[in-house]
């Protein structure tokens, strides 16, 4: 049992090295495991699919760089889906710690990739402080909260915004949220204004949104990198010409699979050693 005790006190740098190996090896040698789509992600996809060309999707970038690896692929997949279907995208951010820059990067990159026109197919309204207050005021008039877009152009001069006055002109609102903002979109924008809301969030935050989804207050939930990879899969299935584009989340799932296995191994192994030492103590 000395061995078990020694293993319980293993140097944590060895654990770090194994996690590092679990992260690096699948990047160098991809496994390409198939992704199975879960009902909450399929529900979001189907709701976007149900939007008619020319309808508007409000995409709120409510996250910062720390959550980019999980939420950027979601933004990319949704934007590809919208641009491909001719759904107009109004991007904005209510998250102070870099949300506006995440919006800048994603909207610009995806528009370049699919040839979508700034001001006609999509617009970036920028960041506004105030959270719930801003959400509530947008229900009356978007221009009240965002009088100019992120480039300083008055919204009245933006062709896309002439048809979007408030939530009545929005087919679906999607919040890519890392904080409580996702909940606010649901319990304020959905509950008070009746707008369909879908949430994309980190894997850690996803469980709380299931309650809203089951209550039909949220259309669906895209949870973590797994959810993003499922959305990528659905877009690739529905639009084969987009299948060749980069699928960051799908590639990342190999890494996540192996790192999960490494962590599971440590949990189970640690408990086996713990039980072995406890039994020895009891016998003694």
């Amino acid at each position, binding site marked *: 049992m000395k061995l078990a005790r020694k293993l319980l006190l293993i140097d944590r740098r060895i654990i770090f090295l*194994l996690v590092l190996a679990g992260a690096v090896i699948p990047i160098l040698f991809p496994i390409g495991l198939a992704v199975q789509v*879960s009902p909450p992600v399929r529900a979001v996809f189907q709701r976007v699919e149900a939007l008619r060309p020319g309808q508007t999707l409000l995409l709120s970038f409510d996250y910062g*760089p720390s959550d980019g690896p999980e939420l950027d692929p979601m933004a990319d997949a949704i934007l590809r889906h919208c641009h491909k279907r001719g759904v107009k995208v109004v991007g904005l951010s209510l998250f102070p710690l870099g949300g506006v820059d995440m919006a800048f990067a994603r909207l610009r990159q995806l528009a370049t990739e699919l040839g979508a026109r700034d001001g006609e197919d999509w617009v970036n309204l920028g960041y506004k*402080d105030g959270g719930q207050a801003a959400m509530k005021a947008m229900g009356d008039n978007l221009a009240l909260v965002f009088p100019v877009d992120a480039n300083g152009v008055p919204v009245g001069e933006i062709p896309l915004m002439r048809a979007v006055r408030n939530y009545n002109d929005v087919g679906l609102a999607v919040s890519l949220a890392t904080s409580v903002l996702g909940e606010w979109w649901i319990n304020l924008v959905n509950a008070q204004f009746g707008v369909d809301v879908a949430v994309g969030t980190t894997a850690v935050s996803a*469980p709380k949104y299931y309650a809203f989804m089951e209550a039909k207050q949220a259309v669906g939930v895209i949870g973590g990198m797994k959810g993003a990879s499922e959305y990528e899969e659905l877009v690739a299935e529905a639009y084969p010409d987009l299948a060749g584009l980069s699928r960051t989340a799908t590639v990342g799932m190999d890494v996540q699979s192996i790192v999960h296995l490494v*962590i599971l191994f*440590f*949990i189970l192994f640690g408990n086996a050693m713990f039980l072995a030492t406890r039994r020895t103590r009891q016998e003694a």
Partner: protein
Amino acid sequence: MKKQVPILLAVVASLCPVVGFLLPQPWVDEWMNRRLDEWMVIIASFALVLGVVSVVQVNLHKVRRRSRGWGFSLALLLSLGIMSAFGLFGGQGERADGSLHPFTWVFQFAFSPLQATMFSLLAFYVASASYRAFRVRNVEASLLLVGAVLIMIGRIPLGQAIHPLVPQIAEWIMQFPNTAAQRGIIIGAALGAAAMSIRVMVGIERPYLGKS
């Protein structure tokens, strides 16, 4: 007067949205909903300024007194000053020639990688902590462990490769036991928030005066 005026303002301001919600009259909607929403956005922006002032004061004090870790405070103040200057006077996003404004450049090539690095370190610490601390000491901990293992396997493609039922079990856990627990937490928190709001409305709770 120092106490009464803020309390009166807080009570009136907190009752306005309630009255606005319950009385569907145009003038009520105009004054108690639209105007108040505009004010809230403006006040929230001032709160941000207040936060910056507070951060500057605290860290400036540390630097002046050469308190422990004052170097970090200096770095914070310099970063705050430089990024504020870039943001206020240098523009944001891309220039017409496709190059990035300084604020966006620093955000993209310094802030983003640093934040991503901090967050990715979690994987290493989670692995180490779960090895040392996640123990089946009792029935509750054992149930937690079983749930965690099923979710962790079910939420990766490998779970599907092991058996098609694994992701379905994970989804069932998320849909039913998880949803039940989450509803309890959400309803409890909402009731707590409602009770707290009523206490603020009637002036029992006065956090804006610096004490309850």
